């Protein structure tokens, strides 16, 4: 069981209250019409699957029902930080020397 800090409820809650929502910081292309099928498919379907630090979204389903971002180590499951939507992570892979 993970303990996850919800930046909106401002406290640690049990994993059971949350739903994972996949990779964070995916930006929708501004002009989808000019993309090739491959570029569009990359935006829609292709996701990172890193060994190490991963920035991902979680939904506080049973709490405030808000999406937020989490930086988590996929090997140790250690959560380094959680931050609100629109914010940038303070812990990044390059800083930690990981891929």
């Amino acid at each position, binding site marked *: 069981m993970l303990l996850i800090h919800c930046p909106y409820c401002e406290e640690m809650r049990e994993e*059971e209250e949350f739903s994972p929502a996949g990779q964070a910081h995916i930006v929708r292309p501004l002009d989808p019409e000019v993309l090739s099928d491959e570029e569009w498919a990359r935006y829609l379907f292709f996701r990172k699957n890193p060994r190490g630090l991963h920035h991902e979204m979680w939904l506080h389903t049973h709490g*405030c029902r808000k999406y937020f971002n989490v930086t988590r180590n996929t090997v140790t499951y250690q959560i380094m930080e959680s931050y609100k939507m629109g914010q940038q992570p303070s812990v990044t892979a390059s800083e930690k020397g990981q891929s």
Partner: protein
Amino acid sequence: MSNSINMESPLHHAQLDDLVGQSGDGGVILHEAKFLGHLNLRGNSQDPEFLAGIKEVLGVELPLSACSSAKGERAQIMWLAPDEWLIVVASGTEHDVEKKLRLCLKGHFAVSDISGAQTILELSGINVIDLLKKSTGYDLHLDSFPIGKVIGTNFAKAGAHILRLEKNKFQLVVRRSFSDYIWLWIQQGSKEYGLTIT
């Protein structure tokens, strides 16, 4: 056939009214606060006009800090999210309050009457903490769950909002569709302490 429509609470079938006074001093006391007016409010808490409008209509400041609640003479407000609140008003006044909110609030906001969608269960008694410990993983110590705090969490795997009214008194806001399940759960969970319906 009669044209009158009788309001039925989500726990109508449990006939809680018939159970009042049927059992003695139970460790857990349950009361359904039925037919209260529930209004869901969305809006921008950074907007001073929005906050002033709420204060004018409800006579109480909107609770802005996370997991807090506010109680006025006319309404009780629970914080659900940074831009979402639940306003609980006396039975029958919800249409009036909704109308006044629409008149007084300006800008980008939403008010929805969700009175029929959920119900409030009041749990109290000397063993109420024991029952809650079986039902939710949240730390119920007064340090982490002080009086007046409201949390959205799991109650027996169903979603619920729990508001602490007193040291041993809680309000559970549960969805209509989950109310029967939670009623059965409360009966099971309080078996060893005794359950009194009031």
